[in-house]
């Protein structure tokens, strides 16, 4: 038994919401499966050329330039490979399995994610690992790796899990974070970790200006960093800007203005 390869028939059409299109869910030619495209619901095979291919339990999507939203939403097992860019909400509320995006992805990727792995080769949009619009719970588990940069509010209200970003992040990264770990290889925008309660935000460059509401806990060696490095080597995603060795980092504790005890770790030069 093989997986499926879905190729968009009409790339210039409106965004296609792929909620419910998951590995192992497509029987045969995908007959009976419908998705919302723009404002209307259509049969999946009217929008995609569906063929057998790829390993069993996998799904290969070829957007051909079309906007595919909610790729892997609610996914629990299997693997999805997107040979191009994703739209918004990639890996939304994912519980398991692996979603690999060879291009970029839009806003709300890994929103409310609970488990599994999301790997994005390019950039990610705003609200990576944050709650869905109107929601109160950010990412609650799983691993996200981004090869490029990410937008504003990465890891907002995050509760558990690991997010690594090779490049830069925008404003309010880790704002209102409750737990979990975010690692950023590049620079970060204004107001990092605003109103953070707990959790770890690991940076290799000190934020400028320094975040208000944090107290300096001094520079120390952190064994945790070596363990994290080992873990990330497994995923092959240790941010490029980070030193390859060394466990020394300055620890800022806060955000005290919100009664928080989270940590902002700024790596020292190895």
């Amino acid at each position, binding site marked *: 038994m093989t997986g499926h390869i879905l190729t968009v028939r009409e790339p210039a059409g409106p965004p296609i919401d792929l909620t419910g299109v998951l590995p192992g869910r497509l029987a045969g030619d995908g007959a009976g499966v419908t998705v*919302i495209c723009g*404002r*209307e*619901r259509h049969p999946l095979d009217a929008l995609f050329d569906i063929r057998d291919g790829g390993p069993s339990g996998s799904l290969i999507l070829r957007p051909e330039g079309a906007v595919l939203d909610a790729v892997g939403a609610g996914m629990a097992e299997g693997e999805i490979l997107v040979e191009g860019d994703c739209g918004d909400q990639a890996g939304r509320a994912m519980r398991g399995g692996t979603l690999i995006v060879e291009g970029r992805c839009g806003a709300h990727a890994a929103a409310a994610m609970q488990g599994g792995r999301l790997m994005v080769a390019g950039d990610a949009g705003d609200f990576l690992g944050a709650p*869905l*619009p*109107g*929601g*109160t719970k950010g990412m609650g588990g799983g691993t996200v790796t981004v090869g490029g940069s990410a937008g504003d509010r990465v890891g907002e209200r995050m509760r558990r899990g690991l997010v690594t970003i090779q490049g830069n992040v925008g404003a309010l990264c880790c704002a209102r974070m409750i737990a979990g770990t975010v690692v950023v290889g590049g620079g970060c925008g204004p107001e990092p970790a605003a109103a953070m309660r707990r959790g770890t935000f690991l940076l290799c460059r000190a934020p400028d200006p320094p975040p208000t509401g944090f107290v300096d806990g001094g520079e120390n060696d952190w064994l945790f960093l070596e363990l994290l490095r080992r873990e990330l080597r497994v995923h092959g995603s240790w941010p490029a800007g980070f030193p390859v060795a060394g466990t020394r980092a300055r620890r800022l504790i806060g955000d005290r203005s919100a009664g928080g005890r989270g940590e902002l770790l700024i790596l020292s030069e190895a």
Partner: protein
Amino acid sequence: MLTKLSGGRVYDPANGRDGVVMDLYVRDGRIVGDPGRGAAPDETVDLAGKMVMAGAIDIHSHIAGGKVNIARLLMAEEHRATAVAADGLCRCGGGVASPSAHVTGCRYARMGYTAAFEPAMLPSNARHAHLEMADIPLIDTGAYVVLGNDDLLLEMLASGAGEEEIADYVGWAVNATRSLAVKAVNPGGINAFKYNQRRLEVDEPGPFHAVTPRRVLTALAAAVRRLGIPHPLHLHGFNLGVPGNVESTLDSIGAADGLRLHLAHVQFHSYGLEGDRRFSSAAARLAEVVNARPNISVDVGQVMFGQTVTASADTMAQMSNTRLAHPKKWAVMDIECDAGCGVVPFRYRDKAFVNALQWAIGLELFLLIGDPWRVFLTTDHPNGGPFTSYPELIRLLMDRDYRLAKLAELHPEVPKHTILGSLRREYSLGEIATMTRAAPARILGLADRGHLGPGAAADIVVYTDDADRRRMFETPDLVFKDGRLIVRRGEVVAMAEGRTHVVEPAYDPAIERRVARHFEERMGLKAVHFRIGEDEIRGGNGLVRHLCRPGVF
């Protein structure tokens, strides 16, 4: 074109018909009398064995305006979980407790409703509310302007303005905002909230203007009468949801001093302090007073179990409700010089004592108030539950066995705290037709709605008799809007535009100078721009004016 609706059993309380088998004739969107043997109908619809009523009218449902939009934003999870795709006729949308505008119209029409009225339109939100109501298809709409906490009125009262001057200001406000009626929400209380006060008794002077809520209430009720607005002052009373608040409710009735007064969502205002839990039903006390005073009408605001969102201008009540928010998020804010806004998501649980007793109190009120012309079927959508729960509510009123079965499923303490189990009354179809059709039309002054006599708009609903009244009222066979078939077996088959109902009471334009000065000094725009033009309502093509009769209503 003449259409004959042949042989249906007609329930039309306004014209004294209670299950009379007869033919109805429709010409050009209006019901006409029997045209005689000579006139051959162009179309005949056989309704033998079917039940026929006028289109239902919801007198109190929050369907448009600022707070409804905030509720939609807060209930984003619900909108995602209940997304509706476009189907060729109805547009896409979603939501249950706070449905999107288009979905609101489609759902109402599917249930046989042809009109719903937004009961709390703040003047500063009026333009937005009208734009949104124009986006609600298939049903007629209208709104009640909220006064009683606005700085100008309170200033006028504080400076001793006379009854005539107050009436002129109210008349200006109703005209400027294109409203159908006047509503007061916790009069004086929302203004007091802005000065950090969390409670205001009926006879307690407000913190800034030193005007008592009783004074505001009587002034507005008198102004409504003086202007001859058909609908009496629509009052969201004091201390909403607070145990023991029945005293304030009875005080309000006393303050009306014989003037007509409509008490909104009285279920939330009928609480006593008896029993171990210091929370009890005062429905019997209130019902006794309402039964004895023909100047008082009420809508119930029944609680229905499940997730909903509460949205109200009453910041005082909503601020105290924020600790009960579910999911845990809320928004409470002041709105310009008008009033306020509080939106708190809430889940009513049948196993929670307070919620279950609220459910029982609402049903007690329905069953204890004897006159169906003065009690209206509402859930205060979405505050007590979404309007889509009306068919379930109708079944609870019409089927005692079903009601008792539901009562037995509630929190075990509740049956001991309510007399609901001993109430034998079951509503008849005629009474349901009264409280959902004839009575709302009459109390709102809609002369050509809510009945099936000659001259009435041909808003007609056809049902198949079914012992399960919920099923019957959930999916009507046919719904006609202005003579046009829009729903067949619960599905929309044609799109139609509703109308916006307004009144235009006469007032002395001299008041506009004072209003203009107030706007110049305090507001973000000029009074002349604040006023909504006729061409702004449904593109200038949808206004229905109703008659004001000073001194009569």
